[in-house]
């Protein structure tokens, strides 16, 4: 079999078209800048009522040209994806084949967008996101990776860890297998890495690793930050001084040094991650118990039910995750992953603590807090049911940003080969494995690098959109 080309049968038509569109975009953008520079002085007109109007026909034309060529560019790019799915299998190029593999993701994305846009007026802040182009792009990128992680088993063409096919070492994208077995996929879509594994499958499987660890670790960091930060801001005093000092101490630690000291096999051997997990994983349980107790302590029946449920489920998860002593043997994390998880939580929580503390200091002076104090509400009720819900806007935005930051941290850990096992398909580890021969075989590290970038970019754009929309209210 021959190697695949990037575009397959679509190439002869769409390649010239996309070149023309790109050229048109560049020319119109330059023209727009030039025109707006040269007409800067005579663009201001005074209307009949003396109002200042800004208009210029020339810029209007160049801007329209720019928008049109941009739209053409996007349409052609979509054409590659859709056309790639529709073409018969033997005419597909690499892009077409990849697009076909991602079919479940496309369907899920279209469904989510259609439903969300249809009901956006009833969906609160989430619905407002669909009024915002930036937010929509960000949401799309994030949702793409989330669905890729969910459907990873359907998308991958080879096993990301075990399928080592001889003769496929460091091969270019679209290389066919030398002797494909029965029912085996015929090509390495994005080439092979240094030990002849499929780069495409590793990228997709990596999404699953990254998207399980990063959001969970961020959530835990938020629990720790909230449980400590709200009382530090609300009660203040010595409690606050000590906690702030500790938080600043952890923040003064260079993250990378901390990782190098904490995430080593020797530390795992000492059981340090288990003890840290034992402390850090208590916070979510404590948070929920305090949350229920402060709200429902006047209704003992409800309170007891909620607290007992939290303690049962939380305790079960806690035993399994932190101490690896799940009585049913269902839940456990390997030591390498646990230390990565714990150290990422540990690095993130002081920053969350500072944000939450700052927000609390601001909100505690509000009237509704004073009203709750006058009503004689308990301290924890005020903290968790009056202050915290009113801090949700900035916290939500920071949560999105922080997942991105956590993804970057995970990549950093992988880049230095810390924590996760060396055959793990996560993106940082793959970059690390490929960076030695980067100048000769760029694809193995380039593909996960672009994946990290697009996910983090999506999260940052999503956070930006959320911030804009939440400020509008």
């Amino acid at each position: 079999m021959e190697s695949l080309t990037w575009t397959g049968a679509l190439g002869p038509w769409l390649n010239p078209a996309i070149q023309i569109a790109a050229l048109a975009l560049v020319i119109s953008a330059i023209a727009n800048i030039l025109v707006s520079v040269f007409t800067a002085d005579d663009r201001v007109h005074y209307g009949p009522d003396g109002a200042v109007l800004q208009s210029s026909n020339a810029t209007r034309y160049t801007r329209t040209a720019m928008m049109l060529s941009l739209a053409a560019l996007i349409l052609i790019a979509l054409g590659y994806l859709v056309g790639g799915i529709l073409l018969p299998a033997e005419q597909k190029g690499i892009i077409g084949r990849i697009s076909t593999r991602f079919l479940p993701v496309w369907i899920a994305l279209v469904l989510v967008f259609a439903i969300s846009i249809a009901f956006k007026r009833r969906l609160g802040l989430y619905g407002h996101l669909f009024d915002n182009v930036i937010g929509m792009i960000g949401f799309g990128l994030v949702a793409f990776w989330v669905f890729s992680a969910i459907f990873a088993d359907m998308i991958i063409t080879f096993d990301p860890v075990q399928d080592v096919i001889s003769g496929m070492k460091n091969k270019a994208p679209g290389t066919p297998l030398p002797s494909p077995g029965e029912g085996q996929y015929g090509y390495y879509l994005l080439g092979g890495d240094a030990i002849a594994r499929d780069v495409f499958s590793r990228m997709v499987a990596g999404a699953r690793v990254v998207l399980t660890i990063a959001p969970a670790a961020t959530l835990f960091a938020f629990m720790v930050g909230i449980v400590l930060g709200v009382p530090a801001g609300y009660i203040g005093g010595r409690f606050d001084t000590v906690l702030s000092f500790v938080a600043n101490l952890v923040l003064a630690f260079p993250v990378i040094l901390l990782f190098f000291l904490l995430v080593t096999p020797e530390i795992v051997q000492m059981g340090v991650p288990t003890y840290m997990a034992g402390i850090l994983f208590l916070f979510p349980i404590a948070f929920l118990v305090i949350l229920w107790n402060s709200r429902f302590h006047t209704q003992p029946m409800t309170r007891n039910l909620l607290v007992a449920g939290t303690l049962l489920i939380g305790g079960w998860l806690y035993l399994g995750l932190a101490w690896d002593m799940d009585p049913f043997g269902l839940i456990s994390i390997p030591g390498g992953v646990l230390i990565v998880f714990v150290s990422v939580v540990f690095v993130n929580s002081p920053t969350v603590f500072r944000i939450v503390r700052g927000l609390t200091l601001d909100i505690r002076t509000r009237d509704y807090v004073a009203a709750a104090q006058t009503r004689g509400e308990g301290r924890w009720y005020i903290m968790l049911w009056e202050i915290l819900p009113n801090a949700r806007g900035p916290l939500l935005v920071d949560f999105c940003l922080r997942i991105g930051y956590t993804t970057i941290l995970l990549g950093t850990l992988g880049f230095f080969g810390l924590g996760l096992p060396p055959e793990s398909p996560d993106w940082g580890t793959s970059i690390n494995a490929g960076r030695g021969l980067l100048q000769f075989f760029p694809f193995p590290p380039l593909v996960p690098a672009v994946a990290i970038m697009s996910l983090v970019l999506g999260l940052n754009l999503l956070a930006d959109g959320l911030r804009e929309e939440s400020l509008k209210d």
Partner: protein
Amino acid sequence: MFLFILRRAGVMALTALCMTFIVFLLTNLQPNLEKLAKTQAGSRITDAEVQSWLERNGYAEPILSRYGQWLGVLPGALTLAEDGTPESGRCIRGTTVDSVDEVPRFCGVLQGDWGYSTKFKVPVSEIIGERLARTGLLMFWAFATMVPLALIIGVLAGMREGSATDRTLSTFSIASTSTPEYVSGVIFVVVFASSMVGLRWFTGSAKSAVDGITFENFTLPVATIALYGMGYIARMTRASMAEVMTAQYIRTARLKGVSFRNIVLRHALRNALIAPFTVIMLQFPWLLTGVVIVEALFVYPGFGNALVEGAQNNDIDLLLAVSVVAVVVVLITQLISDIGYAFLNPRIRVT
């Protein structure tokens, strides 16, 4: 003001003390010491030999006493041979002495002795000095490109909030903050130094930069560091600029008929640059991670490389020195940013 600096200095000293102790604790865990013994005395030695190596080299003493020795508040350990000449000890590593009298009693950080690197077999201060000079050069060029570019982008984006320029530049800054060094480094090398694209403008390794930096070998590392930090400063500058542009005195200037260029350059700019100043100062410590990644990616033997080598070989003294340098940089930049902020903004009074 003086009291403020004094109090900050006290907190700094306490933080540095706590931090070095934590580093000390982590590097001196038993498995780490065993690893050290095996890398120093051969990987095939028995457990008993490991133990005796540790005892001979003073690693078997209680941890607090060794920390005291490192600090220089306790006398350094010394083992004497049978004839009374000093055989080994913390104060004579890397040197040879004949009699006990020549050995200094204290040799810790307080005496200016940073210890001896077990990895590089030279005094730590030598390595740190050399490495810091190289990394300083990298940082200097990174800042020299990053800060002006970020400020220009931020000011251009913030002066007309919501315009096409603003949206383009803001998207660029968001993209730059979502490209960590190991991603942008990989992309830069592929585009500008590999055979795939074929531009080959720069070299993908900065190894030769040790003998003298050139445009060819230093551009990619500098650009990689600068890109990630740039977006953040630009966003802060944009936010601050956009806020200033809505202020009353800008409206007054507009109503007086001052031209837009003059409004931006003479009225808005100075006030808009106060907030980014803090951010820029706080970028220093944050850059350390970037430096470590870039030095690993581009094979540049600087401070970050020393950190990696020290951590991988459990080089205790080197790691302690690295963490002291890091924490001092963090705390001093915090101090400068606080003081500078008070100086730049007359509405803030330090009490």
